[in-house]
């Protein structure tokens, strides 16, 4: 074994020695042979000639001997590489076209993979062994957004699930922050359990993190740790910040430290401004102290680590045991059908409630870009086929010099791998440009997002290298095998010969390219159409000429009385603005991060348990709105009356429901006069019915919803809505100024037009726009590549058939006949490819239907458009070569061969 290794090292590093050794050995043999020949009575020249003849093709023996010696691949590879670089440098035009073609295909793949990487692989930065983090979620069939748990439940899980080595909880809330004497601003903070930083395994950049024993009693330790980003951006990296005070929702807290620069919490994608103790919730959020005892107060997200030797399954089983025990402590019935689970953190993105569809979306998009890459590979393979024909003589010479077929194949493969690596580099560059364009798709909202560009994982680079090499292999293998299969006699005779099989392979290339292109185009078309349809969705309000601004009077410490006065004064002043038609406000902003979902039922149906659950209970989107809301939003009151000034805190409780809620609770009956109730609430009389709109996501199915009058249910995080006569954006600066003049200290957010909000909200059109842009871009690249491919193949076949065309013309064929001949040849391939592609696309669109909004998978305009468009464009690609065929001069072509 040792001997072999030293031999291997010998071969690799002393190849020159071995080569001279071998040459010397051969020379000795030849000379010995000459001597023997002389001894046998031959003349000097005869003896030399005989000895040389015996060695035959001298290179042949040496080549065979080298291969027999083993470890030869490495030295050959270096040789091939050098040769390949030289060849690519010599044929620059070919190299540039091939590299750019592959680069386009590769960049699409790298771009999509980088997005996938962010969702599936990107580590949570600054957290020790972040790949081991798990997220605890609750799945409740009655509530899509039920992944949170209460503090009391958390303590039970923490203490009674041995499978967790540690378990922390996080409550992510908006807050108004200010330093003493300065105006407050709105941001988001995390209330966390005392073990939070220890579980993260992070160190402070300044000061300290939580101390042992700190944060155990309610309101005892009003200490906060600032995030590095907040400290840098908002406080100018003030070195004396530790020990100073910061106001959180008007309450003074002590800054005890600044977290590490790379630590932005343990929730993916978001970056809180600061961390404070969960036990500080009552004083800072003004929540009641029974918050920590009330098992139904599901507020926290749980993040943990699995103990050594335990599996996720074991932990789930232990959770189930705890659930069984604590179910009795919850309101009866509320834990029925609820499953508590743990998933690895990277499988819970962007949010446990919606992470289920991501693998499907990722697969679809990766599949589409792979098809684009295959189109690109087919193009370059075609170029290589064409070049192989011109390189036949070179191959023949190398073969007669003793290169084996395997050696030639390897040489050609090395060349295509070189191409692919160059293309991979170019593709990486292109995809960073594309990545820059995708930055515009960061969802809006006032939640601070973590800076994803600085936290790239190494996977996209690995992916780029692997996919490039694969592309090189796929591209080069067939042409290399074919080119190295030499018929020496035929090549020497000088004719390329009519290789039927080669034509067949070329035809297959065109067919598959057109087919792949059809699939990618259909997918792109479906996503674009889906976006187009989505913008026509009935939202339940008119988004045009609507400006908005949000404020949180509760966080700012306004009492309900003062808050109501403030809102009345504010709306009066805003309504008086020029260009403003009407002003309204509501507690919930549609398609935002706070959906306001509640369980409601008919107040007259029997109560099932102490949670207030009644028979026929449904989940509905709620909103609390002022008297101008329905009119200003143009929500479309179908029946009954709107809220008015007589609906006050002292009058009977009233509610307006949407059509879907009415249909669900009182099918076929008149909802007016019926009584609606939500859990723990008082019955409210239905006084009106509005059209069903969209409340949580624009892509949602018709959702039940109801509106309460603000006067009867004061709740003062509100969004103002201004219906304007002209451009809504124009009034926004004035609105901001007016709010400032009324309360200089009040943070205002979401100041934008409703259209901007919908476009960029993760719950609005943002995901659809992103899908449409990516899929549309893919379609364009696919089309471009396929057209290049069709053109290349048809042009090549024309150049190969110049002689045939010349003969036809000489025999009296019309030039138009020749034109038709060429175009017909291309057309057949295009039609076959198109049919195959469209059939597969139908299957794909069935899979896609889960991701598409408001679109049937058999969208006729898309399919018809792709069929016609692709045919026309491909025919154009045939047209140019056909024109050239027409202009063939029979006299010249016949003479030149």
């Amino acid at each position, binding site marked *: 074994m040792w*001997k*072999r290794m030293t*031999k291997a090292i010998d071969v690799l590093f002393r190849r020159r020695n071995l080569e001279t*050794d*071998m040459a*010397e*050995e*051969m020379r*000795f*043999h030849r*000379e*010995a*042979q000459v*001597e*023997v020949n002389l001894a046998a009575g031959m003349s000097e020249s005869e003896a030399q000639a005989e000895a040389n003849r*015996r*060695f*035959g093709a001298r290179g*042949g*023996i040496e080549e*065979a*001997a*080298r*291969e*027999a*010696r*083993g470890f030869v691949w490495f030295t050959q590879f270096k040789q091939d590489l050098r040769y390949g670089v030289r060849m690519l440098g010599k044929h620059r035009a070919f190299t540039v076209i091939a590299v750019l073609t592959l680069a386009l295909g590769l960049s699409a793949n790298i771009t999509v993979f980088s997005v996938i990487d962010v969702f599936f692989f990107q580590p949570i930065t600054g957290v020790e062994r972040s790949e081991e983090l798990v997220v605890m979620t609750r799945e409740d069939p009655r509530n899509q957004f039920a992944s949170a748990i209460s503090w009391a439940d958390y303590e039970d899980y923490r203490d009674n699930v041995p499978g967790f080595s540690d378990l922390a909880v996080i409550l992510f809330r908006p807050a108004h922050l200010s330093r003493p004497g300065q105006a407050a601003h709105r941001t988001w903070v995390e209330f966390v359990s005392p073990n939070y930083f220890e579980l993260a395994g992070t160190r402070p950049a300044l000061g300290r993190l939580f101390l042992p024993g700190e944060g155990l009693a309610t309101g005892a330790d009003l200490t906060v740790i600032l995030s590095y980003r907040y400290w840098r951006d908002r406080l100018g990296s003030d070195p004396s910040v530790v020990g100073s005070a910061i106001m959180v929702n008007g309450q003074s807290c002590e800054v005890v430290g600044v977290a590490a620069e790379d630590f932005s919490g343990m929730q993916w994608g978001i970056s809180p401004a600061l961390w404070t103790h969960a036990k500080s919730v009552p004083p800072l959020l003004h929540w009641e102290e029974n918050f920590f005892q009330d098992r139904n107060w599901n507020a926290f997200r749980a993040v943990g680590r699995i103990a050594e030797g335990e599996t996720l399954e074991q932990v789930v089983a232990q959770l189930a045991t705890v659930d069984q025990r604590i179910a009795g402590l919850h309101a009866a019935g509320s834990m029925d059908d609820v499953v508590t689970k743990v998933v690895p953190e990277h499988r819970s993105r962007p949010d446990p409630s919606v992470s289920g569809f991501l693998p499907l979306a990722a697969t679809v998009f990766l599949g589409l870009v792979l098809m684009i890459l295959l189109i690109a590979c087919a193009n370059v393979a075609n170029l290589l086929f064409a070049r192989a024909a011109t390189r036949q003589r070179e191959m023949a010479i190398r073969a007669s010099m003793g290169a084996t077929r395997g050696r030639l194949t390897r040489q050609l493969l090395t060349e295509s791998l070189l191409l692919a690596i160059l293309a991979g580099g170019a593709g990486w560059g292109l995809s960073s440009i594309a990545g820059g364009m995708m930055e515009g798709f960061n969802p809006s909202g006032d939640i601070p997002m973590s800076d994803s560009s600085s936290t790239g994982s190494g996977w996209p680079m690995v992916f780029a290298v692997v996919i490039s090499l694969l592309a090189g292999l796929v591209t080069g293998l067939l042409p290399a095998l074919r080119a190295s299969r030499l018929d020496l006699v035929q090549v020497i005779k000088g004719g390329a010969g009519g290789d039927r099989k080669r034509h067949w392979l070329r035809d297959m290339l065109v067919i598959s390219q057109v087919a792949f292109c059809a699939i990618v185009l259909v997918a792109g078309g479906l996503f674009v159409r889906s976006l187009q349809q989505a913008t026509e969705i009935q939202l339940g309000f008119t988004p045009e000429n609507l400006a908005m601004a949000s404020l949180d009077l509760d966080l700012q410490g306004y009492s309900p009385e003062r808050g109501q006065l403030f809102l009345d004064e504010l709306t009066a002043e805003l309504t008086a603005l020029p260009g403003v038609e009407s002003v309204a406000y509501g507690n919930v902003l549609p398609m935002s991060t706070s959906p306001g979902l509640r369980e409601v039922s008919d107040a007259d149906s029997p109560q099932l348990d102490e949670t207030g659950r009644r028979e026929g209970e449904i989940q509905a989107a709620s909103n609390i709105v002022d008297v101008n809301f329905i009119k200003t939003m143009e929500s479309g009151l179908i029946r009954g009356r709107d809220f008015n000034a007589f609906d006050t805190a002292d009058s009977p409780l009233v509610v307006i429901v949407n059509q879907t809620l009415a249909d669900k609770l009182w099918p076929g009956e008149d909802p007016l006069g019926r009584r609606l109730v939500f859990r723990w609430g008082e019955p409210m009389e239905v006084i009106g019915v509005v059209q069903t709109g969209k409340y949580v996501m624009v892509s949602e199915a018709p959702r039940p919803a109801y509106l309460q009058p603000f006067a009867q249910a004061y709740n003062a995080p509100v969004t103002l809505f201004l219906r304007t006569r002209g451009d809504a954006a124009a009034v926004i600066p004035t609105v901001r100024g007016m709010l400032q003049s009324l309360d200089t200290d009040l943070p205002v957010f979401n100041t934008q037009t409703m259209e901007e909000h919908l476009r960029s909200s993760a719950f609005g059109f943002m995901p659809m726009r992103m899908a449409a842009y990516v899929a549309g871009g893919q379609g364009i690249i696919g089309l471009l590549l396929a057209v290049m491919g069709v053109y290349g193949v048809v042009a090549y076949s024309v150049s190969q058939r110049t002689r045939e065309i010349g003969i036809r013309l000489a025999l009296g064929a019309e030039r138009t006949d020749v034109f038709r001949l060429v175009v017909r040849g291309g057309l057949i391939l295009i039609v076959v490819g198109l049919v195959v592609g469209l059939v597969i696309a139908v299957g794909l669109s069935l899979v896609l239907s889960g991701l598409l909004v408001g679109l049937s998978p058999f969208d006729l305009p898309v399919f018809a458009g792709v069929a016609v468009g692709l045919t026309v464009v491909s025919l154009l690609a045939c047209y140019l070569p056909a024109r050239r065929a027409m202009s063939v001069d029979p006299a010249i072509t016949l003479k030149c061969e």
Partner: protein
Amino acid sequence: MSKIELLQGTLDLLVLRVLQSAPMHGFGIALKIHLLSADALRIEEGSLYPALYRMERKGWIEAEWGVSENNRRAKFYQLTRKGRKQLVTETATWQRLTAAVGDVLAKAD
């Protein structure tokens, strides 16, 4: 004088056998096989050297530079311990094969 085509794999056996008594260079091996077979076997250089390198890689023989009969530098091959074992098994196999073939030729009619 007609040449006999060597059976696949037989060359290795011949080379091993010829090297059994003493180290030899490539030309000597070819010459000796030629002479011992009474001119019936003619080893092509194109098969000999690849075979030698292959056997060297397998560890059956090892090479060393030496000086030839007429005082020239030549590469001498000699059997290794592994090569001797290989010679024994290959010889046995060969004898079984020829015996079997002989039996068939003699007895079949």
